[in-house]
């Protein structure tokens, strides 16, 4: 059903947890479809200095969350915005067809976190 890579990430997820003072948080999915992901980022010099995730969902949901944190860590925000769902699935050696749209939300979560960061920066800028 799943590739070895998916199972490996499910067993040993990278960067699992929360960042309490995150610069950006992206939450995607909903409990109705069975997948909810939260991605937390810390930004330094326009790069993703730290990233963590929390996920409610199936094996694919956990593995894609884990993989997207690995792909995004250290990247510039522009590079990270270019990471797609397909990139995440490819890095995992593919996902079962039915999981491609329902559980492959991690890239969306990452983008939402970056957008949240931009929004917060704007607010900060206005306050100054």
């Amino acid at each position, binding site marked *: 059903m*799943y590739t070895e890579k998916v*199972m*490996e990430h*499910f*067993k*040993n*997820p990278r960067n*699992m947890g929360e960042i309490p003072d995150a610069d950006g948080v992206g*939450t995607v999915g909903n*409990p*109705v*479809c*069975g*997948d*909810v*992901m*939260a991605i937390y980022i810390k930004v330094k010099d326009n790069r993703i200095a730290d990233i963590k995730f*929390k*996920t*409610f*969902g*199936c*094996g*694919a*949901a*956990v593995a894609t969350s884990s993989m997207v944190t690995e792909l995004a860590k250290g990247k510039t925000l522009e590079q990270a915005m270019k990471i797609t769902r397909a990139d995440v699935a490819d890095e995992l050696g593919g996902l079962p067809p*039915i*999981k491609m749209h*329902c*559980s492959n939300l991690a890239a969306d979560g990452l983008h939402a976190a970056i957008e949240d960061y931009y929004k917060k920066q704007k607010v900060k800028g206005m306050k100054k």
Partner: protein
Amino acid sequence: MNNLSEDEGTTSSKRIYMDYTAGKPVDPRVVEAMLPYMETMYGNPSSVHSFGQEAKQATEEARTKIAELVNAEKKNSIIFTSGATESNNMAIKGFAYRNKDRGTHIITSSIEHMSVMNPCKYLSTRGFKVSFLPVDQYGFVNLETLEKELTDETILVSVMYANGEIGIIQAIKEISRIVHDKKAVLHVDATAAVGQIPIDVKAEGIDLLTISSNDIYGPKGVGALYIKQGARVEPTIHGGGQEQGLRSGTENLPGIVGFGKAAEIAKKEVQTESERLTRLRDRFIKGLTEPIPYAFLNGHPVERLPNNVAVRYSFIEGESMLLSLDMMGVAASSGSACTAKTLEPSHVLRAIGLKHEEAHGSLLFTLGKQNTEEEVDYVIGIMPDIVKRLRAMSPLTSKELKE
């Protein structure tokens, strides 16, 4: 916390099977009974010669054993099919088409197997009206609604004996009384129940009964439909006229012989095995729910199939639990969307009123002949850590549990 075991990445050497509703092993005594009918007694029961006649005799002996298992009035009330799906299709579509002059209304429950649900939905596109009865939080069919829904137009009511996903056992005798008061016919899908509960079609007032072979430790690919004398059904498969013209196709002889042997064994052993499984089940349910916060039982605590352990854990998802269990060598099942071909959570779990996220957190163990108390205790032992790990990962986990 991130790793399930010290030896990360390796899979447990234990292999514990607790998914008996999905598939059962064939009893070795059944295999032994079947072998001659593949190697030396390969005749066609329709043939006149001795090869054919010994095949015919074997088929009829098996028919008698299945009739005895459910206390059918005569062996010819048993029609062999390719399994429960075909039996359900034959009962519902076959009965509906044969009796449409008497009425076009069919009633079923909202927790039936897909092989009852979908023929009913199909018929609703072919001029029939179908009512789906609601169930309560345990899965009991609402008898008052049944009474209200029954009209002079109602020809057939189809309610399962027991549900394999939540274990609920219906009050069939009571349902039968209500259905027969309105002169309708009762079909009961007993796939999950036969072999676990003694069934008596005469005493319980069942007109059509679906039985599956593999569910009583017989071979896959064979089943039966009991048709009470007087109930008329149209064939769904046409051909050479086997099975009294109701189910054409050369008989699956080894399958039928194995099914017969399995029925004979089930009749003898159902009592002892069900008592053993009930003890295991109750120990298992207690061990899976009591030590873990936000753990619940799906279905009813007592009116429950002896082998059915259906639980749910808040804030986590079923497939993740299945994968985690599989890594520890345990095979279970889930009502979770992610394990099915559709994205919706199980219609059964939704029908008993579970919210989507609750349904997604369901986990189903179905026990069988080979399970031991030691195996049950092993799973009870590993479950808290699995739940804890997934809850630590979940953004839905309530704050109090995080501390």
